[in-house]
């Protein structure tokens, strides 16, 4: 087996990398692929709680990279979604315990074992970022429709291009009402500014917080619009590029929608 390593990154913190990693990882596993999601936020681990697997950590990614345990010992199997595995971050180390060369080597081990490996990158563009992208074949850049987030995405996209990786963009936490009102950058605006290919649009959704409260996978939540959006992104990552990108729409009243349709909304 020769798997693919995809880094999920953004530059800025709090834009949805961890949420995206957990959900897209789950989506790929539901597509029948063998998937590992790796928490690279060493010292500040969170992917475990988002996935509801925090009570089952024995070994972590640093142990696995340093050869203190076997890969299989560090990989926690999700019991709700088949073929999904979490490799948690260590909480006691800092990002400098690993170097990019370690990760390139570890990447080969991972690729022999899984179809898809998602690296949940920490915020910033220092060592944690370098370790996360060291072995990456592809990249997903997450940003929010907000000035500072888009600017940071631009910086990260430049760094990825410098490594010959052409990233795909996810715009997360879209509030359709605000976009329609002209108070939030639309995905067209963002793509125009960043000149990068889009892979999915995810609306702001209360279910994201509800699912992290309980540790239940967002993608298994029936009415979650964000969950559904991440599932479509997973399918597109998995080669279903014919799948159209759905634009989040406001729930608004009939007249409001008609207004938008006839260009009166803005």
């Amino acid at each position: 087996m020769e798997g693919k390593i995809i880094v999920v990154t953004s530059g800025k913190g709090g834009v949805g990398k961890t949420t995206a990693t957990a959900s897209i990882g789950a989506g790929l596993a539901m597509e029948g692929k063998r998937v590992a999601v790796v928490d690279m936020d060493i010292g500040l681990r969170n992917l475990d709680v988002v996935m509801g697997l925090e009570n089952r950590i024995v070994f972590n990614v640093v142990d696995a990279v340093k050869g203190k345990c076997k890969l299989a010992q560090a990989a926690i199997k999700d019991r709700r979604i088949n073929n999904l595995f979490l490799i948690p971050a260590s909480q006691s180390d800092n990002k400098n315990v690993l170097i990019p060369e370690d990760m390139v080597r570890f990447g080969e081990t991972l690729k022999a074992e899984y179809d898809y490996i998602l690296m949940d990158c920490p915020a910033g563009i220092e060592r944690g970022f370098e370790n996360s992208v060291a072995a990456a074949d592809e990249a997903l850049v997450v940003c929010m429709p907000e000035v500072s987030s888009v600017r940071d995405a631009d910086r990260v996209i430049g760094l990825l291009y410098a490594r010959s990786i052409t990233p795909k963009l996810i715009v997360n936490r879209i509030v359709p009402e605000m976009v329609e009102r002209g108070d939030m950058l639309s995905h067209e605006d963002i793509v125009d500014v960043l000149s990068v290919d889009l892979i999915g649009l995810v609306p702001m959704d209360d279910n994201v917080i509800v699912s992290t409260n309980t540790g239940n996978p967002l993608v298994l939540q029936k009415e979650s619009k964000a969950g559904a959006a991440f599932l479509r992104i997973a399918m597109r990552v998995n080669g279903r590029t014919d799948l159209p990108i759905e634009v989040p729409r406001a729930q608004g009243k009939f007249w409001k929608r008609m207004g938008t349709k006839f260009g009166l909304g803005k």
Partner: protein
Amino acid sequence: MLNGFLKKFLGKSDSKDVAKKRLKFALIYDKLEVSDETLENLHRDIVEVISRYFEIDHDAFKLDIHRSDDLSALVVNTPILSAKHR
């Protein structure tokens, strides 16, 4: 909708248009920034090239980036002591 109408009517622009404009400028500006290390390397390389043709005063050699609103210029200034004849 009414909100949108009113805004148009009053000639107010959408805040996202302001955001987009500011972003575009910020990104251009960010890309013009040069690190000290790059400047030092450039300094060394330019001195080396000019020295092939001229005797120059190394201490008086000056390299700067001048910025104005819509223009960024690299300004090199060096006194020449003599031309090298070969």
